[in-house]
């Protein structure tokens, strides 16, 4: 009721026609102003350049070389500091002219667990963040060891992994694996000048693709892994020689409504993420695009059509997400109970967790203990009980109708369940 009243009231807040007209005129003037300014600025620049070129051509041939070099340099400059500088908020570290960031797409590709022993995998220190770009607006390409992390954040290699593939980023609050994602170029019109083989060689000393993971385009979760010979043979034959193009070089609009996210898994476990756009048969990879042959595209489409090999936990329930309007949870570790009074938003968060993990049936293991009991359904009388058990390996096993299921890929932790209870149900409020 209140929700509808609110929507109706807000609908009455509209852009006044007079303001819209003013806005349009003002934007046209601004656009014209920007263009004029650019042209005006060009005149003295061109004149100065002509003088320099004349002088240096006649008197100082070496100076010309230096000046051209300087003019083509993409100089980094911090413009200002502002909370509007949202571009600089992504978690990224620039090292060796490449950007590294964490990637949901690659989660569980190399490490099939969230319980990574970072101290055990930590290699040598290769540097630390010298320039904190958080909240700063800048032009040009950021220098090495600049980051959206605090100055002093340490960067380490990871044992048995090439630093050109991934590094370990350590600050006082967290340790995370950052993957090399793309070459740093000033803008999308500058050539990337890399082939897929160059990238594969960066990531691994055994740059042959040995399997392909299909990922869910909604949440990046793992759906299936293929080792189909024909698919791998086409990938290994065709992809390495392809140049990675920027959008201008590609010459067409690559994006379409759908995408097929896949990870190419190399022999040593390194992974390269790609997204294929069905309408154009192009794929985005390492910050640019490649064109796929119809044959290869056909194989990838077939993989996509196969969809998930195992059901997600949510598919084990006899209710569609939209039908669920009753949720009751018991945390069996501390005895806390919560009946969700407004289950819609609790349901969204629950299903996003249950959708993520694909599970397979497992035999009952006696070394497990019940950590959470959930009652999920339409009402107090129309529901199903889902039990969550924790094993000795800290993996959550789900029980539905007396059958036990465990994630095929990845690790569901009790922490995820308890965070859900405190952050997405009334329990958090009761605790407060």
């Amino acid at each position, binding site marked *: *009721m*209140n*929700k509808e*009243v*609110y*929507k*109706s*009231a*807000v609908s*009455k*807040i*509209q*852009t*006044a026609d007079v*303001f*819209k007209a003013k*806005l*349009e005129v*003002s*934007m*046209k003037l*601004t*656009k014209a102003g*920007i263009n004029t300014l650019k042209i005006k600025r060009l005149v003295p620049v061109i004149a100065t350049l002509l003088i320099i070129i004349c002088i240096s051509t006649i008197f100082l041939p070496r100076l010309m070389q230096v000046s051209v070099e300087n003019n083509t340099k993409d100089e980094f400059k911090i413009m200002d500091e*502002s*909370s*509007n500088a*949202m571009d600089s*908020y992504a978690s990224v570290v620039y090292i060796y002219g490449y950007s590294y960031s964490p990637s949901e797409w690659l989660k569980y590709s190399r490490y099939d667990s969230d319980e990574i022993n970072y101290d055990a995998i930590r290699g040598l220190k290769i540097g630390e963040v010298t320039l904190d770009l958080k909240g700063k607006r800048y032009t040009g390409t950021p220098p090495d060891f600049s980051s959206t992390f605090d100055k002093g954040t340490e960067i380490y290699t990871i044992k048995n992994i090439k630093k050109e593939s991934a590094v370990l980023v350590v600050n006082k609050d967290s340790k995370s694996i950052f993957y090399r994602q793309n070459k740093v170029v000033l803008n*999308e019109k500058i050539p990337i000048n890399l082939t897929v083989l160059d990238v594969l060689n960066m990531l691994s000393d055994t740059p042959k693709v040995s399997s392909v993971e299909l990922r869910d385009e909604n949440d990046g979760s793992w759906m299936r892994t293929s080792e189909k010979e024909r698919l791998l043979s086409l990938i290994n034959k065709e992809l390495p020689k392809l140049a990675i193009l920027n*959008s201008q070089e590609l010459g067409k*609009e*690559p*994006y379409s*409504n759908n995408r097929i996210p896949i990870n190419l898994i190399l022999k040593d476990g390194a992974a390269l993420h790609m997204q294929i756009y069905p309408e154009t048969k192009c794929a985005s990879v390492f910050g640019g695009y490649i064109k796929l042959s119809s044959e290869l595209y056909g194989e990838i489409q077939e993989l996509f059509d196969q969809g998930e090999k195992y059901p997600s936990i949510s598919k084990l329930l006899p209710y569609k997400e939209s039908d669920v*309007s009753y949720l009751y949870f018991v945390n069996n570790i501390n005895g806390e109970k919560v009946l969700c*009074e*407004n289950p*819609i*938003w*609790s349901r*969204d*968060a629950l299903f*996003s967790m249950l959708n993520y993990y694909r599970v397979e049936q497992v035999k009952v293991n006696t070394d497990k203990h019940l950590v959470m009991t959930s009652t999920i359904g339409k009402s107090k009388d129309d529901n199903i009980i889902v039990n969550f058990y924790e094993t000795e390996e800290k993996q959550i096993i789900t029980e539905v109708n007396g059958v036990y299921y465990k994630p095929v890929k990845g690790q569901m932790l009790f922490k995820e369940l308890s*965070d*859900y209870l405190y*952050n*997405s149900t*009334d329990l*958090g*409020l009761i605790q407060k």
Partner: protein
Amino acid sequence: MTESLRTTDSNFIMEAIEKYSDTLIRISYSYMRNMSDAEDMTQDAFLQLIKKKPSFENDLHEKAWLIRVTINLCKNRLKTAWFRKTLPLGEARFDFTEKESEVMSAVFELPTKYRNIIHLFYFEEYRISEIATILGQKESTIGSQLHRARKMLKPKLKEDFDDE
């Protein structure tokens, strides 16, 4: 990348104004609580679009970007020392019914962060995960804030905000 083509089109800003000005006015109004400043913030957001010419993956991405820019502009404006004028809701020129005024007053009495999430969730119908992306916060934080906002509204409105 759709956008790199679109941003070269001189009409792109007019299309954006047509498509998103109401959305941005509402977001700004939710923050600033008066139309004059809401219009300023909306104009500044479109200026950012012209200046930055970002690459958008699709219209939804473009809309989310504009919303985030608008929110940041509003936050900045609210932070400035000279910003003191906050007209009460009654001085706005909207033809609210009595019930609408009651609900809007209750929502507008909420702290800004809660007001904003209520707006994005109920009016713009973004999912919690999408709001988290737009505001650059964790999903769990948004979920908790939405929950608290609803709890704060309940005594004022004498019933749940969302009775689904």
